[in-house]
């Protein structure tokens, strides 16, 4: 027996973990861009795009006039007023786990508690430019630890399925957003596609997804936009590709269906529908219809799956 609220807590705990990680990855991209030689001519755009993709643009503008690294990283990492700041995500994740305390192992609780406490301590340290990549890296390390604790100690029951659904719904979302930022926001003008700057940005995107090396293993040779898009959307082995997340979502929904001995839920049907289209998809089709349109539609359909999950399992009434 799993309380609807506990299922919701587990689901959101991991969505917040994944979100915190995405923000740190975004900031890492911003930082790397700022180290490029032609940084000064484009940086405004890029920092703006990072705020946009973190969903924090409007909030930031209310507070600051200027786009600079110090303000932006402060706002995205530590600002209590920013709902999606890393510190608020870690806090929300930890409080969700605390609410579902009787559904997680001691190891899982200790690691969520510890991560939040560790991050709180960072906040007190004085800001230095060179600290940003160190911080971003330590956030990734913390979230890896949280995952390890879950994988190694939790029973693989319905609660585990909700934890995983949280990850992969959020991850599908964030990969799509990161990709969209690159294509739609960083390079609005057609003529620059394929130029030096374009290449550097694709490279940065791969790095931000910790996929630089993995891409090299999967595709020999040059980084072309087609290959990278195929990798991030359609590669079945890359843990941050869209299709990978979709498969995991589908798997976990099937598992719930089996455990509860029920008919396919609307979430189940929706995810199957999306997946079936993905199996037949070719990269050139995506480019033909426009990558941005493709990603926008993808995010809409993933959000529909998320709503169906909430409707089916978190309301408690069937």
């Amino acid at each position, binding site marked *: *027996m799993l309380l609807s609220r506990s299922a919701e807590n587990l689901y959101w705990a991991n969505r917040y973990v994944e979100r915190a990680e995405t923000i740190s990855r975004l900031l890492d991209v911003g930082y790397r861009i700022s180290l490029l030689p032609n940084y000064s001519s484009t940086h405004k755009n890029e920092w703006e795009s990072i705020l946009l993709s973190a969903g924090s643009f409007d909030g930031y503008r209310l507070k600051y006039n200027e786009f600079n690294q110090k303000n932006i990283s402060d706002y995205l990492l530590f600002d209590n007023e920013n709902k999606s700041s890393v510190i608020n995500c870690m806090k929300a994740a930890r409080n969700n786990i605390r609410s579902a305390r*009787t559904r997680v192992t001691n190891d899982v609780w200790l690691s969520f508690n510890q991560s939040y406490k560790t991050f709180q301590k960072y906040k007190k340290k004085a800001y230095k430019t060179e600290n940003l990549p160190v911080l971003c890296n330590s956030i990734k390390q913390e979230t890896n630890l949280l995952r390890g604790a879950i994988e190694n100690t939790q029973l693989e029951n319905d609660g585990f399925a909700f934890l995983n659904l949280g990850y992969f719904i959020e991850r599908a979302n964030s990969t799509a957003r990161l990709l969209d930022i690159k294509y739609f926001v960083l390079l609005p003008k057609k003529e620059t596609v394929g130029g030096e700057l374009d290449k550097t940005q694709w490279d940065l995107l791969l790095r931000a997804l910790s996929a630089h090396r993995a891409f090299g293993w999967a595709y020999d040779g040059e980084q072309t936009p087609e290959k990278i898009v195929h990798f991030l959307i359609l590669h079945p082995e890359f843990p941050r590709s869209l299709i990978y997340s979709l498969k995991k979502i589908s798997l976990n929904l099937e598992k719930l269906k089996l455990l*509860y001995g029920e008919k396919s839920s609307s979430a189940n049907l929706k995810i199957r529908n999306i997946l079936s289209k993905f199996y037949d998809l070719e990269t050139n089709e995506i480019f033909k219809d426009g990558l941005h349109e493709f990603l926008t539609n993808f995010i809409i359909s993933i959000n529909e799956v998320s709503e169906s999950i909430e409707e089916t399992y978190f*309301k408690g009434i069937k």
Partner: protein
Amino acid sequence: MQNKKNINEMFEIDTKGKIKTRLPYVKINNWIKSMNVAEIKKKYFDAQNLFEKLGITFSTYENSDEERLLPFDIIPRIINYKEWQLIEKGIKQRSKALNAFLNDIYNKGAIIKAGIIPENLIYQNPAFEKEMVGINVPGKIYSHIIGTDLVRIEKNKFYALEDNCRTPSGVSYMLENREVMMKLFPNLFQSYKILPIEDYPNMLKDTLQSLAPLKCENEPVIALLTPGIKNSAYYEHSFLSDLMGIELVEGDDLFGKGDFVYIKTTEGTKKIDIIYRRIDDEYLDPLCFNPNSKIGIPGIMNVYRSGGITICSAPGSGIADDKEVYIYVPKMIEFYLGEKPIIDNIETWSCNNPKKINYILENIKDLVIKEVHGSGGYGMLIGPKATKKEIEIFKKRIKENPQNYIAQPTLNLSSVPTVINGKLKDRHVDLRPFCLSGKKTYLAKGGLTRVAMKEGSLIVNSSQGGGVKDTWVLTG
């Protein structure tokens, strides 16, 4: 009483005037002596770190985002078996009498008709819950967990200072203090023979399970109802439900419908039978009590009345720990059980007693004045520690509303050496054992020793900076 020096639990002065370590503490004292200040400090920090890592915290309502650690002291409080046997009998006796009293006043009111307790004290009391009158309560048990606060003010004698009959907290600290001590100092546990307390969660579950409601035909399903993660005792709520393997629920997870209360699960709704609630009466049912409550379960009182659910503790149990009703507990024991009280009350006077009011006002600087409905160490005056101004304020208040106050002598609580900045200092303590009442009565073989961390202070409440110690009951 107040002129004598307080009892030290670890040391006594022998007939020759020499300081002597009391027998149960000899090994502890040797252990402490074997360490220097730096080592003691290190042990102290190790313990605090363990608590912090485990997230054993409590939050204060003034700043609900802040989670604080309860100061934990590594020097245990030790009670020998002979003394414990007396405590056990005495506490069980009180618990039985208090439950008999609650059953009586919500039904026939025999103790009032017999003229033993004044009618007004009960029926005019804000803690008297009219909604409870005539309800058939499972097992006739109203208060399932009673935490009686004991104080030692004479060498071989404990007194009962108050009985917490609503939802006494602190039992998780009793259990975790022991865990931390066992982790840090296993050698002490090998050299002492200490009665285990780990069976408490199982006994609590048995107690709750033994009181299934009338209409329950299945194995009863139990849930612990918490106000949520911002509540100061949330850690305890999650800890206990985890150990008992029962659901930890919030008001929104439940609803009353027809004859039963249901919880919302991922597989639809499920009936539940027994609720161990850790929210106050007032918030339990917005349809019956405070209509603005957002943490309660609308309709639960109707289900309760018709025998569809057991609520632990029953609404209205709080009248049994009213500070003026307390005065009558020894008489309850005689009236309901036909026995002499094993543990005595502290001498207490109602300021409403015309024969005592002059004595109280004249001697106020030696007395403790408590608000009848106050708790947590708030709303009280400790005469010997109060300023002239505070005394004048209380005198005025007592004259205006004598029925709101009681007076007690200032108690010289016993003390146990406690680590303060790496050195041992005497600090005052009390003791809260936890008594369970279901089909059987059970007392955990230990308790929570609360410590006033400030020098000379008599206030042990955690909300006011009090700390805790592990409490050892030695085998016979």
